[in-house]
């Protein structure tokens, strides 16, 4: 056990939030970070988390509405968003509830919610800045949403400066407009969005570089709740959740913002075409560094899809050339969650996808020009990820040593899996990996055996977010049909958080020697059915300092912003001047 119990030092760190001078823009692309910027093994900060669920005040329990009919939605839920709902500078948590299943609307993909039936609602928990939460649902208006929920996306859809929520559900999805005071209003009816069926993941992103946020929604499969097929042995207690191959796939949706927070269906016009896909998650990320945000869709048992953003709201299916549709054996994967991040320090963004048991999760290393290579084995991620069923995943510098680490929430979808495989379980332990050099990972699951990986969970969502203001990312793990867990980060260094970056901003951190030492995007991380904070966060190895930031919004020009004094940790806030240029907040 390497569990650390360092106390919160946020008071000290906040004082470092520094004013600085704006330096001239530089288009020179410095070389990738060198070994000198990394911590050596001897100086590695230690990983350490503490389960603070009880103390957090969060008492949400996900209700999957489990029935004896083994309806597939019962085993998929557990969405979560971590964002600043009341704009008080800390991260609040919004849990997506499911509850009793709706009834069949008489045809596949039609769902009816019985009027008058009291249903459990989604819940919003407001943070006091120290990871203590109070239930703000009662005053959150329509955020107390009660259809059978799956996932949530966060973004300022109408450009009013406040975060809005998109809720994917069984049935008609919803768009909730936020007012920045943790209150939300359902504006679906006037939004132009009509996304029925079973939608799952969603992402706001500026697809056409016009300054507003468009929306992509993944759809899973077409089911008829009136006729659930029987899967598994026909014996008492042996009925099992069906493989998604038993159901037809459903087409994802792309909704283009008209500029006023209302949307038009541009799925076909934009070039998205995967009518048979079984999407569970989407990550928006500029994978070729051209300033346009691309999309990667994780499909369950059908080919994943990578869409290259061509600009102007047009996309090209780049899956084939990229090699990201299948694993290195050329097999489709049961892809669940997804994360993007620069795992090998070459300043482009790689992809990590979680999958089913008897197939590993997959790391696709970005080789440039939209070509990726499955480097799961070389990265040391094959062995540990083969047996569990992976869902949420975060690529985050958990120990703040300058390299991205990886955490994965696991849990089988089949609650009676032990009947079928005596070596498998429904609840499964999470996994943790420490990033080492050259895109490799070391399995540190045992190092976190007192906290994150201690108990087996029916893990679904997993997000990293600084909940207690010490600039170290906590982990929030959700369970399907169970309680979430909050793990406070008690180890490692303290990171450098960049606030005030508009959605989609690409941020590079410049080291003291002028080399770029990290790249991030101000895009909420999806993990599985969720959205993490948008603020880019960097970890820096002990003794490593950053002297400047380079930022770019969309296809705009890069701008370098120099700190007054080199920083290793703290919180930097950017403001935008009238001419669109960034400045450090004073």
């Amino acid at each position, binding site marked *: 056990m390497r569990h650390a119990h360092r106390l919160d030092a946020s008071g000290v760190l906040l004082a470092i939030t520094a004013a600085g001078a704006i330096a001239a823009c530089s288009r020179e692309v410095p070389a990738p970070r060198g070994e000198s910027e990394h911590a050596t093994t001897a100086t590695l900060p230690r990983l350490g988390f503490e389960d603070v669920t009880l103390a957090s005040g969060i008492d949400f329990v996900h209700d999957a509405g489990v029935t004896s009919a083994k309806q597939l939605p019962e085993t998929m839920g557990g969405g979560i968003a971590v964002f600043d709902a009341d704009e008080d500078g800390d991260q609040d948590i919004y849990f997506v509830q499911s509850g009793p299943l709706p009834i069949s609307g008489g045809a596949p993909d039609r769902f009816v919610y019985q009027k008058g039936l009291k249903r459990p609602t989604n819940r919003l928990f407001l943070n006091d800045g120290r990871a203590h939460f109070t239930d703000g649902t009662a005053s959150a208006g329509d955020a107390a949403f009660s259809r059978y929920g799956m996932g949530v996306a966060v973004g300022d859809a109408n450009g009013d400066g406040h975060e809005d929520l998109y809720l994917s559900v069984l049935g008609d999805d919803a768009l909730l407009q936020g007012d920045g005071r943790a209150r939300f209003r359902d504006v679906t009816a006037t939004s132009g969005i009509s996304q029925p069926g079973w939608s799952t993941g969603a992402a706001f992103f500026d697809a056409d570089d016009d300054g507003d946020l468009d929306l992509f929604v993944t759809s899973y499969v077409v089911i008829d709740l009136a006729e659930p097929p029987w899967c598994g042995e026909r014996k008492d207690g042996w009925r099992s959740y069906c493989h998604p191959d038993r159901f037809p796939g459903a087409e994802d949706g792309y909704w283009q913002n008209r500029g006023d927070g209302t949307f038009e269906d541009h799925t076909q016009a934009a070039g998205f075409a995967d009518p048979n896909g079984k999407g569970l998650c989407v990550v928006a990320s500029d994978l070729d560094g051209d300033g346009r945000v691309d999309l990667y869709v994780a499909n369950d048992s059908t080919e994943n899809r990578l869409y290259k953003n061509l600009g102007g709201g047009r996309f090209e299916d780049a899956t084939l050339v990229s090699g990201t549709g299948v694993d290195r*054996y*050329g*097999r489709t994967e049961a892809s669940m969650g997804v994360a993007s991040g620069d795992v090998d320090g070459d300043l482009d963004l790689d992809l990590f996808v979680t999958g089913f048991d008897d197939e590993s999760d997959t790391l696709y290393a970005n080789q440039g020009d939209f070509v990726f290579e499955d480097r799961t084995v070389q990265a040391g991620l094959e062995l540990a990820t083969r047996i569990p069923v992976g869902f949420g995943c975060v690529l985050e510098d958990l120990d703040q040593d300058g390299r991205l680490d990886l955490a994965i929430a696991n849990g089988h979808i089949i609650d009676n899996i032990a009947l079928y495989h005596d070596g498998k379980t429904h609840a499964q332990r999470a996994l943790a990996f420490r990033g080492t050099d050259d895109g490799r990972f070391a399995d540190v699951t045992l190092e976190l055996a007192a906290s994150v990986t201690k108990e087996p969970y029916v893990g679904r969502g997993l997000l990293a977010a600084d909940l207690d203001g010490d600039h170290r990312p906590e982990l929030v793990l959700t369970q399907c049909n169970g309680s979430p867990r909050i793990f406070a980060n008690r180890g490692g260094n303290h990171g450098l958080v960049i606030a005030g970056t508009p959605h989609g901003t690409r941020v590079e951190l410049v080291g003291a020697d002028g080399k770029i030492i990290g790249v991030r995007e101000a895009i909420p991380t999806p993990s599985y059915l969720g959205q993490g904070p948008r603020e880019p966060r960097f970890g820096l190895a002990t003794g490593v300092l950053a002297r400047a930031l380079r930022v770019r919004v969309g296809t705009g020009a890069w701008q370098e912003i120099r700190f007054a004094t080199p920083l290793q940790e703290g919180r930097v806030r950017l403001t935008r001047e009238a001419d669109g240029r960034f400045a450090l907040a004073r």
Partner: protein
Amino acid sequence: MTHSVRIPLVFAALVLGDPAPSSAVDLWARGARLEAIDAARKEVEQDPRPETWNRLVTWQLAVHRHRGALADAERCGAPCNAERAEALYRLGEYERAVPLLAERDPLACLWKIDALEALGRFAESDAVLDRARARVALDAQFLGAEGRRAARNGDFAAAERAFRAALDVDAFDGEARFGLGRALVGLGRKEEGLAALAEHRRLLPLLDGVEFARQSLDLGPVHAPNWTALGDAERALPRLDRAEAAYRRAAELGRPEELTANALRWSRLLLEDRGDVQAAVDLLVRTARETPDARLLVRAGDVLLAAQRPGEAVARFTEALALRPKDAEIAKRLAAARAGASR
């Protein structure tokens, strides 16, 4: 772990012969697999020969009782080393599995290569692969492993050669098709690579269909419709010999009410893919003798009519009408056949 190396074990377990009649074997043959395992355990207690141990362990592996299989294989000792190795491999305990996986067994050898790769022990996995390639010249899976290794090492020309060789052995090898496309892209021959990848994309749902059918079989290996579904999936690829073997197995296992659907599908293969009218008709008629079902005879009549053999069609429709005397549609077809026969 590749899908293709997972399934044969099920079939192997199915046909695991035991010369001595036993209730355990009978139960197993009937598909009462858990009960068969209980009976096999009793047999082991009474008669702990290697054969009985081996059967108990093998059966447990077949129903994914990997932990149970491992425990019993360890009690069994050396005679069950192969099964112990498999159990360890299935449980992801590769460090322990590797020394026990026998390279002379092609399947175990593939597992060993896979386990060593997963452990990051590439030099050892390469050595095992080299030894295997020296023994097994033309095997799509070993060739695929060779291509994968070459690609991992950045030698795309060697990868192309290996994957092409694998495709020569099995044109429907998904790994080889995908690997070839990736190798060509790696070689800068993007258009060629994309063509191979597009073909792989076309095949993917069909290969997944086969895999899904195999998973169903894994759960219910004596359930005839599962074999019929496998036949359908193999036919869609098309791998006709495998499809026909699956339909044949379904016919062997099927209950009367399951035979018709299987025969109708199988006859389509014989007719549409093999162009063998007589074989299709013989199958339909033979099945109708086992399970009197007018649909089989109507289909036989239709086939014969389309083949300009109305006289024989009359006989089949007549038999069908005897089974369903009030069926106007059959009567109509019979009349048409008679009209053709009289011309």
